[in-house]
């Protein structure tokens, strides 16, 4: 039995401790906002927060999350109104949208440490999150907007 918190709710799971957190979240707990994209920490679609740090859930075994606090995209804000989520909608960032929960979770971890990141810090923090639709310029703009950085 592994006990952890997911989005503030205690989960007691009788699951193989080696199962990647991604599949625990999706297949066992039933939250589908965290996405599978590569299974090898190469694309960032599965990004969640583990005690506030961005991690790739596809390579994080459940045992590593035992007793810790997991936040998924569903738990980032109560009503989808985190400044990043609002900026994403206002700037029309998503195309297909599949990678965007991972992008937002990576950006949220960045802003929690660096409330006003530089362009280089944004690029560096999001370099692990692929977007095949190619929304990168809008992602950058939305992170800056959420951070209250004026364009110019």
């Amino acid at each position, binding site marked *: 039995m592994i006990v952890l918190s997911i989005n503030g709710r205690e989960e007691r799971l009788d699951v193989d401790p080696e199962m990647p957190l991604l599949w625990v979240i999706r297949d066992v707990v039933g939250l589908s906002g965290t996405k599978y994209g590569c299974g090898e920490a190469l694309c960032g679609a599965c990004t969640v927060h583990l005690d506030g740090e961005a991690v790739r859930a596809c390579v994080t075994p459940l045992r590593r999350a035992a007793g810790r606090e997991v936040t998924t995209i569903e738990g980032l804000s109560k009503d989808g109104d985190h400044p990043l989520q609002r900026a994403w909608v206002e700037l*029309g960032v998503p*195309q*297909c949208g599949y990678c965007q*929960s991972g992008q937002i979770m990576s950006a949220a971890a960045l802003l929690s440490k660096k409330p006003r990141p530089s362009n280089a810090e944004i690029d560096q923090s999001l370099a692990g999150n692929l977007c*095949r*639709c190619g929304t990168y310029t809008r992602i950058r703009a939305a992170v800056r907007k959420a951070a209250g950085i004026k364009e110019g």
Partner: protein
Amino acid sequence: MSTLLVPRRSFLVALGLGTTALALGVSTAEAQPKATPDNWERPTVAQLPEDGGFTPNAFVHVALDGLVTIVCARSEMGQGVRSSLPALIGAELGDDPARVVIVQADGDTAYGNQDTDGSSSVRGDAYDGLRRLGAAARVMLVAAAAHRWSVPATSCEARDHAVVHAASKRRADFRDLVADAARLPLPNLPSVALRPARELRRVGRSLPQLDAPAVVAGRAIYGADVRLPGMLTAVIARPPVVGGSVATVDSKRALTVPGVAHVIELPQPKTPFAFQPLGGVAVVADTTWAAMRGRAALDVTWVAGSNGSYESTEYRGQLLTAVRAEGKRVRNVGNVDAALAGAWKRVVAEYTVPHLAHVPMEPPVSVARVDANGCELWSSTQSPEEVREQVATALKLDPKRVRVHVTLLGGAFGRKAKPDYDVEAALVSKAVGSPVRVQWTRTDDIQNGYFHTTSAQRLEAGLDASGKVVGWLHRTAFPSISSTFATGVTHASDGELGQGVLDLPLAIPNVRAENGEATAHVRIGWLRSVCNIHHAFAVGSFMDELAHARGRDPKDNLLDLLGVARIVGAEELGVKKVPNYGAPLDRYPIDVARYRRCVERVTELARWSSRTAEGRSLGLAVHHSFLTYVAVVASVVRDSLGKVLVDEAWVVADAGTVINPDRVTAMMEGAVVFGTSLALHGAITMRAGAVVQTNFHDYRVARMPEAPRAIRVELIESDAPPGGAGEPGVPPVAPAIANAVFALTGTRARDLPMAQYRLV
């Protein structure tokens, strides 16, 4: 209670509609309305409600309370169809968007062509066709109001969810007209009158993204997110070589993995492979992870089959041999041989592009439930009707007993128009007697897909002593997409050659194009912009090479070779027929003025002359595809490590009439990144018939730091009929980058990807 006193015949004649009521089929029996409007959040059928009101066609329902339901029959994969198509229908109807519910169509012939492919959702006949769907409802509501007020229908207008008669200042909400309108015969759809374009008020203004709030909250439902009671997950070991088969399989170890319930051998496909699954062995388990572990524990060996000797790198040499000899003539004007023989200077260049994979962020995934009633699927698909046909064939079912629900697509790029993975889900569900989700891993996606073809091209031009280009010979050789659907295919189709070879305007007196022989050894499929990828790369690069050979500015050279503003037809091009993406040339002519305008404007926007004078390394290319014209300027610099970086890009697109400029702009931005990926990194290689690459570390796509930091897009204002939007941005990107790289480094990257030149 209001009733209609006028006999219907005269009523409709007065409207100028005639009496041939009815038109486009109403939804067929098995696709009858069931769901409530909020069903997008749930994996359930989305059809028109059955709560009274009226349904002028399969796409529109007006309820008794005035609530309008509009069906989106195309698949949403980021291009914004779920916003733009209903907005166009609604604008023609005269709706208040706050009182419209949008539902996603199942796969059903009632909706006509649902294949979301070829940038075709709006272009061509689709635009007016969509408008007619809304117009049919509008005509009925206006007729009901006009009758009630005893005024001519032509004096009434539908807007903001009401019919208004301006002269008498009367206004009736749709809600108050529905019951009367419901008694009217349905207007004849093909001849229903459309509004003047200026009345389509929301068309041409950016629309809110319907699904964005759900996407950013993690609530949007993609194919991978569908969960049914009792559903199992299957991961499949497929033959590494196309046409290969299982030699031996031992499932003992796999079945000991906790959670694994079944191991199923799948049927072997027959040639041509078309949309059949590749065969192999499915491991079915209670969770995705158990299925993946089960597959890893499977002891399986393979027979490679006849494609087992395919070496894509050597094959490139064969394609080059093909284009060094004369091929099948597909375009001819004047006498190229004489022009080249008599030329003062000849310029020759060969270009190659390797196989590419789509790699949508959501790998292929489909959920099927086969039971005594038939088969029901929830699929991340571009083509639900094709899913239905293929599943019906594989399960030997009447297609009416196959229902296909379309989820959001986590990217597609052409991959999800090939329903082999849906057929897998149906076969496995039938075999195990439970609902089954087939989940492709990223490695499956990269190794077992339908690949963009591999190509070689040779271009040769002759200059006279004054530097004028007098002859142009273009040879192209690549395995055809047709080879996936028929045996014995050795040449490209007209449609493939119509993507940048047959339809290229050239102000050159002697022009010939030839197609060399090429046989496929993998499944060749279409990928975003298809053959325009390689043709635009070669032509756009060669144009730049000619500029340097002629000592002219690349922009001036490009405009010179396109020639003066004119409409170019089959005769000038020297072809029997211009495929033109299936669109009539009179409505969608090949217009050199539009090429020129894009080139002029993009170079203005990029400050081409002053930036090049300042020493910036810029590259320019223009291409016409899917009825849209796009010019791109790319800027490249060396980063701190000395590697080439595309730092900025400018795009000017003339897509004719645009419904939703923000999404078309987004498509162009995305196209720049897609084109950057294939230019710098994209290469799938096959050794002994099997794909070498396995994941994003060796099949690279551009990451944020490699993507241009600024992409400026401008759409040409136009009232020309709409062109495509999803694909046409891609083709000019790679040549623009290659030309900029030449300006920066002096290296002419004629073989993609540029990574092999150690530039990036």
